[in-house]
Each structure stands twice: as C-alpha cells, then as structure tokens.
C-alpha cells in the first residue's frame, strides 16, 4: 500500500513538472507572436501617418520631390514586407527616408512653425519610440523562448509543444535605427 502511494505521488509530481514546462514553452511562444504583432501595429500606424506628413511638407516645400518620392517608395515597400527579417529591413529603409524628409523640413521655418506639422512630428516621433519599445519587448521574448528551446530540461519538450526558435528583429545598420531627431 505505501509503495502504491509513493508511486502515485511521484507520478503526480512528474505530471505536474511536464505540464508546467509545456505551458511555459507555449506561453513564451504566444508572447513572441504577440510582440511581433505589436511591432506591426506600430509600423502600420507610422505608415498611416506618412501620407498626411508628406502632404503637409509639400504645401511648404513643393520642389523637394526627390525626397517625397523616396519616402513614398520606402512606405510601399514597408507595407508589402512579410516575415521578421524583411519587415525589419523595410522598417530601416523607411526610417532613413523619413529622416531625410524631416531634415528637408528644417530649412522651412514656416513649415516648422505650423501647428499641424508639429502635431504630426509629435505623433511620428512617438510612433518611432513605440516601434523601438515594441522591438525591445519582442526581442526580450525571443531571447527567452530561444533560451528555453536549447536549455535542459525544457529542450526535451520542444517537439511535443511544437515551438520553434524565432528570429530577432534586427536592423543591420545601427545608424538606421536612430529615430528622426525631433526636439520639443
């Protein structure tokens, strides 16, 4: 009788152990996906802001068409991109194009003074911050998931939980990652 009890208790403990590891892997996986969708939400927000921004700058600096063209193109690429690496790269390109646009606007005092432009600038720089925080959250979770996948004992349950390693959200040129510089 006591042996049976011991076996039962041990089985319960092992069961509990397996369930908690399995659940942890699933939780990490969900966090990674949620983190990436947050990045996409913010990238979409930025893409939505751009036509408005371009129109506003055009009103004051119509002849800077090369700069507008670059922004519009980068935006189109960014909205079409799929997968972590492609999205990250397009994001870098668009950030750089936007930086060019804001640099151009520096030369137009009337534009800089316009209420509409300032509001857009605040929204844009806030969205840039949101993208970078969302990226930080995503990468933290990717690190946790990838660690769990390769370390013992959770690595034994990877097949059962059907989780795979995720890609970090990386922008290759660190300079590209700098948000457009906006002063208040």
């Amino acid at each position, binding site marked *: 009788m006591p042996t049976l009890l011991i076996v039962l208790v041990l089985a319960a403990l092992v069961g509990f152990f397996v369930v908690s590891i399995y659940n942890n892997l699933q939780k990490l996986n969900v*966090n990674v996906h*949620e*983190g990436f969708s*947050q990045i996409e939400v*913010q990238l979409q927000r930025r893409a939505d802001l751009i036509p408005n921004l371009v129109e506003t700058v055009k009103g004051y600096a119509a002849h800077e068409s090369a700069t507008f063209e670059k922004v519009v193109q980068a935006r189109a690429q960014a909205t079409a991109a799929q997968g972590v690496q492609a999205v990250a790269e397009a994001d870098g390109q668009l950030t750089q194009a936007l930086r060019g646009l804001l640099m151009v606007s520096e030369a137009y005092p009337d534009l800089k003074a316009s209420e509409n432009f300032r*509001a857009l600038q*605040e*929204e844009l720089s*806030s969205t840039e*911050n*949101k993208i970078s*925080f*969302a990226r*930080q*959250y995503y*990468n933290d979770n990717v*690190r946790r998931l990838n660690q769990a996948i390769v370390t013992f004992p959770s690595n034994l349950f990877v097949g059962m939980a059907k989780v795979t390693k995720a890609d*970090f959200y*990386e922008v290759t040129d660190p300079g590209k990652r700098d948000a457009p510089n906006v002063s*208040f």
Partner: protein
Amino acid sequence: MGSLTAVVIYAAAVYSGQTSVGIVPIAIGLSIAGVWGSYYGSDKLVLTMTGARIIDHDTAPQLFNLVQELTLAAGLPMPKVAIVEDDAPNAFATGRDPQHAVIAFTTGILKVMDRDQLQGVAAHELAHVANRDTLVSAVAATTAGAIALLSDLVLRITFWTGGNRRDNDNGGNPIAMIAAIVALILAPIAAMLLRAAVSRNREALADATAVAFTRNPAGLRRALEELAADNTVVQQKSNAVAHIWIESPLDSTTTSKLFSTHPPLAERIATLKAMEGMGPTNNE
C-alpha cells in the same frame, strides 16, 4: 508580519486569559474590510483624494504618447493617465490590477522635466503597476492595521476588566504578563516599521524595473536629481496617501529614516548611476 501577528495574538491570550481570543477575528476582519475596500476602489478613491483629472490623447498628446510608448516596453495594457493641479513636481500610480491602473502626474512635474526625465518617471510608475505594488502595500497595511488594532483592543479591554482578574488567582506567571504588555505596546510600532520597510523595498524595485523598461537609467536619474533639488512639497500632507508618490510628500527632516516610506533620493540616484556605469544593457 505573520509572525508578528502571532506574537500579538499569543500575548493577548497570555495577558487577558481566554476572553480576548474572541477579539482576534474582529480586529483582523475590521482591518481587512477597511484596507481591502480601499484597495479594490483605489483608482477612484485616490483620484478623489488627490483631485486628479483623467486626460486622453487629445488633451495632452505628449504625456499620453509617452505612457503609451512605455506600455509597449512593459507589455501592459494602457493605464488611465491623470493630471493633478499642484506646483510641486511629483507623480503616482494606483489601481488594484494593471487593467484598473491610474498613473498621475502633477502639473509641476510636467513643467520642470524634459521628455527623457518624464519617461523615467512614467516608467517608475508603470513599474509599480507591473509589480502589483498596490496589492503589496494593501497586504502590508492590512497586517500592520490588524496588529495595531488588536494590541489597542486588548490593552483597553484589560484596562477595564483588569480589576476583577486580580482577585481570582489564575493570572499565572507575572514575567509572562510583563512580557505580554511589552509585546502589546511594541508590536504596533514594529508593524509600522515593517510596513515602511516593505514600501522602501518596493520603491527600489520599481526603479530597477523602470530601467528594464526604458534601458535608460540616465533619464530617471536626472528626474530624481531634479526632485532632490526641488524643495516644494505636494500640498496634501496626508500620511494616508504618502506612500504612493514617487517622491515622499512628507518633509524629510521631520520624518525619521526608519519610518520613511521611500529610500533617500541620494541612495536611489547612486544606484541608478551605478547602472549607467554597467554600459548598455540592451542584449540584442
């Protein structure tokens, strides 16, 4: 805290015989009802007590955006953001869970701080939300309250009924009696000290969590330096809400360090400076 409660219950039992045991559930019940009522409604209660006014994206876009940015770093839902009309720079967070959180800033803090500093402050407040500090301080307050109430009740009851007991000789060991009285008097003080220590601990933790959100210890450090240099204090000097502000609103010269709900600003600044020395913590 739990062991402190046990000591008080034991002391009460020794001191007044069987009769006082019946008070224990009453004292604990009263304390729980009071503190948990205020914990559950903390978002509304504190807003009324401090006169904070909820803002949205249109009324203060910059502040609202700043908090929204940090919720992404923290992976938390967006809290309510409020502004308190007060010239003293300060801020607080409250609410029973992340879904009911409120983060409030005084008009003074919005005036004197730049974006990086405000980000540090907002991250500190959001860290309180993430660490469930309203819950932690409610637990600490409940226990401290129960202990104080219990000691007080026992001392009063034995004061009134003490006369009869001297006649029948079952009072027992006089040394135990004296020890019981001392314990009953000292326990509430010890409970207060513990409660303050818990609060100081959570403040230090919130600073560390804030840096994990922003990856920028300099912002919060400069914000705390700004607070240290400033000597206006928030108008409401109520002890009841002192612990929720980022900087203690009570004058530091009149409150002793042991009873203080916040670690000294100089200590917090030094810790953040040490974090800056560790270099970029961004491990990507």
